[in-house]
């Protein structure tokens, strides 16, 4: 279970999050949506301890990770897998080495067992037989799939997706959505997806959280959220720029 209480974060004079609070139960699939630069990725990075809050609490299974140092956080992070916006694959390594990275220090696993797990993870993301390729040889969609394989190979409880479909064509985006659903259903993980792709949010999530003006503005089930008559929600869902932005 993840609980965020009164989270505040600023970068210099720029306040990004101002009193964000929400709770995510085990097994839930939550889409966090909001404007570009609105603090969605910042919020996601707080959940896994990549950023430290200025104030507020972040509880992972009841444990406040805010005051933890980097070494204490390593233990908590074993519960998480994260897929980055640009995949963040280690470009000096092959696909197999990337996917197996989490087992680098696991001395109880033999090389054969690791290879088997890598093959299974790559099979799950529909990329069998790509073990020997380097990240530079892969397309954007393939890189994200490898990133997903790397995030799920050690069977984490929570998978975080940072804009998984950004920059991909609709067909590849659709395949990534299907993968996220497959991972959610097969591995029974809690999924948190930061996105501004409304189609993806509608398909993947069973709850949508909207971040607006540095706070949680709305939270609802997808069917309720996407039929909301709230003007702010409507404007975002329909993708309508207001008059001021049209001038810009």
């Amino acid at each position, binding site marked *: 279970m993840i609980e965020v209480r009164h989270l505040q974060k600023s970068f210099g004079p720029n306040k990004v999050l101002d009193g964000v609070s929400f709770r995510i139960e085990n097994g839930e699939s939550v889409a966090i949506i909001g404007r570009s630069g609105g603090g969605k990725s910042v919020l996601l*990075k707080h959940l896994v301890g990549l950023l430290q809050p200025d104030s507020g609490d972040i509880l992972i299974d009841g444990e406040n990770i805010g005051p933890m140092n980097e070494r204490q956080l390593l233990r908590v992070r074993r519960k998480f897998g994260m897929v980055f*916006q640009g995949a963040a694959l280690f470009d000096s390594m092959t696909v197999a080495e990337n996917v197996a990275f989490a087992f680098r220090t696991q001395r109880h696993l033999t090389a054969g067992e690791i290879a088997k797990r890598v093959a299974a993870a790559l099979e799950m993301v529909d990329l069998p037989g790509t073990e020997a390729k380097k990240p530079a040889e892969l397309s954007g969609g393939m890189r994200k799939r490898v990133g997903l394989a790397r995030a799920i190979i050690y069977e984490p409880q929570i998978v975080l997706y940072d804009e998984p479909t950004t920059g991909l064509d609709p067909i590849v985006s659709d395949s990534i959505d299907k993968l996220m659903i497959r991972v959610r259903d097969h591995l029974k993980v809690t999924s948190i997806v930061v996105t501004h792709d409304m189609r993806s949010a509608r398909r993947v999530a069973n709850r949508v959280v909207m971040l607006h003006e540095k706070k949680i503005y709305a939270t609802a089930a997808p069917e309720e959220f996407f039929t909301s008559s709230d003007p702010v929600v409507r404007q975002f869902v329909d993708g309508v720029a207001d008059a001021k932005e049209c001038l810009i």
Partner: protein
Amino acid sequence: MLRAVINSLVKQRFNYVLSEFGQIAFLARDILVSLFTFKITWRDLIYQIYSIGVKSQSVVIITGAFTGMVLGAQTYFQFHKVKMDTATLAVVSVSLCDELGPVLTALMVAGRVGASIAAEIGTMRVTEQIDALRTLATHPVDYLVVPRIVAAHLTLPLLAVEAIVVGIFSSYLVCVHILGIEPVYLWENMLKYTHDVDIVIGLVKAFIFGGIIALIGCYKGLTCGLGAEGVGHATTEAVVYSSITILIANFFLTLVMGKLVGLL
């Protein structure tokens, strides 16, 4: 008005330098904690020894050879006036062991390895690879910094020895075959005036310089700004700061070790 602006700029710069020192101290603390708690991966260490040590050899050999030859020729030009030709190699040997070997090796390695460490880690930072490491429950200091620090500490003394040996040998060749100095007296004088302590001083200096190069390179990479410009700045600063630190540290090490071995 102008004075206030200058004061503010000086204060800003002072705070910046202090904060840099503070952050380097925190990084050094993390490295120590990691060294005492983390079982270093041999594979990573060996790769770094190859990357820092083996790949730097050509640069170091050329530096050592030409420094030795120039030093031999210049020393001969002066010593020949006072009929001390056969002391030439002794001067070359002591200079290379105590100062030029470790310092020039460190400066050349700072240019090659310091820049490469800062660029590699800096690129990893701007492409979120360091965040990816952290989410995979790996401390960046354990995985990226410690193997580089240990490898630099181990390889710099070996590279310095290589530069010294090549420098003395090439100087010997110049002295004997070009300048026509009697080889037996040349060699005997070198052995007579070069002491064990000179070699130890050179090795200790190279060991410390190795740590300086890797520490500053890693620090600049880990704290580099975003984008290509950030990586560029980090790379330049890594080379400049480590070169300056090596020169300053060399002066103090010379004084401290001179005192310790009774030269002062």
